[in-house]
């Protein structure tokens, strides 16, 4: 599961991810990070089973947590060309049996790179 962590000016200076990883014995994969002197936004991936308690721990250390459950969405504007297939780092897009483009939502890590690649502007990353 993907968690979006929001740090304020205080929590952004603490090694929160390391603390949570050690204390919860959790593997935390950083997908996206934007860290500034007084603020930070990090997207991490953790196993579904431990997501709940990892999220609670982050909250305890003063980090705001939001679960990212929505993945990339393909609209009816799609013409099934496949320009998205090779740019996705996790292989979300595939050509299906009938040659239409299939979206494997569970693989999406919400990096958003494909949104700026689609010639038909048919991909959106819902908040």
């Amino acid at each position, binding site marked *: 599961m993907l968690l979006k962590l929001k740090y304020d000016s205080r929590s952004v200076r603490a090694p929160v991810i390391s603390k949570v990883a050690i204390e919860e014995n959790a593997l935390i994969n950083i997908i996206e990070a934007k860290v500034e002197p007084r603020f930070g936004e990090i997207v991490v991936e953790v196993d579904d089973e431990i997501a709940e308690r990892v999220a609670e721990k982050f909250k305890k250390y003063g980090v705001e947590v939001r679960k990212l459950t929505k993945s990339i969405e393909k609209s009816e504007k799609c013409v099934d060309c496949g*320009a998205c297939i090779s740019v996705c780092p996790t292989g979300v897009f595939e*050509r299906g049996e009938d040659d239409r483009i299939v979206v494997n939502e569970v693989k999406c890590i919400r990096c958003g790179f494909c949104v700026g690649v689609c010639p*038909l502007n048919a991909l959106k990353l819902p908040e």
Partner: protein
Amino acid sequence: MKTVEEINEKIREGNVNVVTALEMKEIVAELGAKEAAKEVDVVTTGTFGAMCSSGAFFNFGHSDPPIKMQRVWLNDVEAYTGIAAVDAYLGVTQLSETLGMEYGGAHVIEDLVRGKEVELRATAYGTDCYPRKEIVTEISLEDVNQAVMVNPRNAYQRYRAATNSSDRVLRTYMGTLLPNFGNVTYAGVGELSPLNNDPEYRTIGVGTRIFLGGAKGYVIGEGTQHSPPFGTLMVKGNLKEMKPEYLRAATFPGYGVTLFVGIGIPIPILDEEMAKATAITDDKIETVIIDFGVPRRDRPIVKRVTYAELKSGKVEINGEDVRVSPLSSYYMSKKIAEELKRMIERGEFFLTMPVERIPQKEVFKPMRQREIKVVKSVMSSPAITISPEASIEEAARILIENEINHLPVVNERGELIGIVTSWDIAKAVARGKIGKVEDIMTRKVITTTMEEPIEIAARKMEQHEISALPVVDKDNKVVGIVSSEDLSKLLAR
């Protein structure tokens, strides 16, 4: 042996046997070409991909008082008016003057085909016969006299696939290319594509009736840049009859606007030879993967591949599996071949033989140029350089004495290891930093070479927001320096 007249008679009688190109591969594999030729009358092909060399002629009718349009815009996208008073040609890649790459000629065409109104704005110099100097109005496809799609180059038989050896993401007409051979993109639908099923152009030629954008259209000749086996077609059709499903405006990010065009061509199976031709499979259709990391006309070939390999979704480059993206829609291409098959079966579409063959041999020449200016001709040489051990004061003195802003830093062998600019020194001074050049120099230096065209050097500076490039030889030794002022003097002319 069959003739097109005999096939058309069968269409009229309702007992024609039409199959798609994909079905034909299986039939020939099963029955052999000779039997398949007796069995099958028509093979339908299809393709649906971005075709930049497309557009439409319009005749808007005359205003009162009349105007001889000198310039005309449809939804802020300019069309070409260097023809009669109210005739214009709108190209699909032309960009909106207000929205840029978000909206272009292709979008205007799609909007019109969807039945929407667009704003027409025109200006003129005014004459005795055409006194009006400007007009702004709304038009739809119903309002104009003619709207004729005329596409100078469509339906590429095959196309060079693309990859990128450079270290940055490239935004190209072949889509987004990831750095370090991160992906491959290719266009065309191989064995389903019209010209691959008639590679000698026996039945596809001037006058061939085709499916274009959901309506009937015609081949009017070979397309521009036609060079078999990279054959192309010039086509026309009535935009008023077309369907939006088969004409889709698109933007290739960082490149521009284009139009996905749907084309289907029926191929009459006149004899065994035609049955054999339409049995072609992807593993027999070859192309090359070229490197867009080299920004030159003749991009190096990375690998030879077949459409079967490309279609598999992975190709090997330098020992690694690289993922492949198609840019043409197989789904839509199949749909077009099937739709055309239905139209023929229902007796709505009859075949034609070409009135003239298109060339089976043709060379695609490069542009004749006066000269290609290279960095060597404009660089300052030798470049004034400095050692990494030198003091910041020393660097400042050299910059001032020579009235320059950039100092390449070289080691004792003359190899480039960094660069300091007057701005780096100003920053160091402002922060009270004293020390050596190596403490403040930039280590990742963007460079050029003596033989690099100046346009490419200029683009490097623009992309990295810098104003000079050290010129290095193959051993990374500094042989000169070129600044944006040196280049702008030449490029502005």
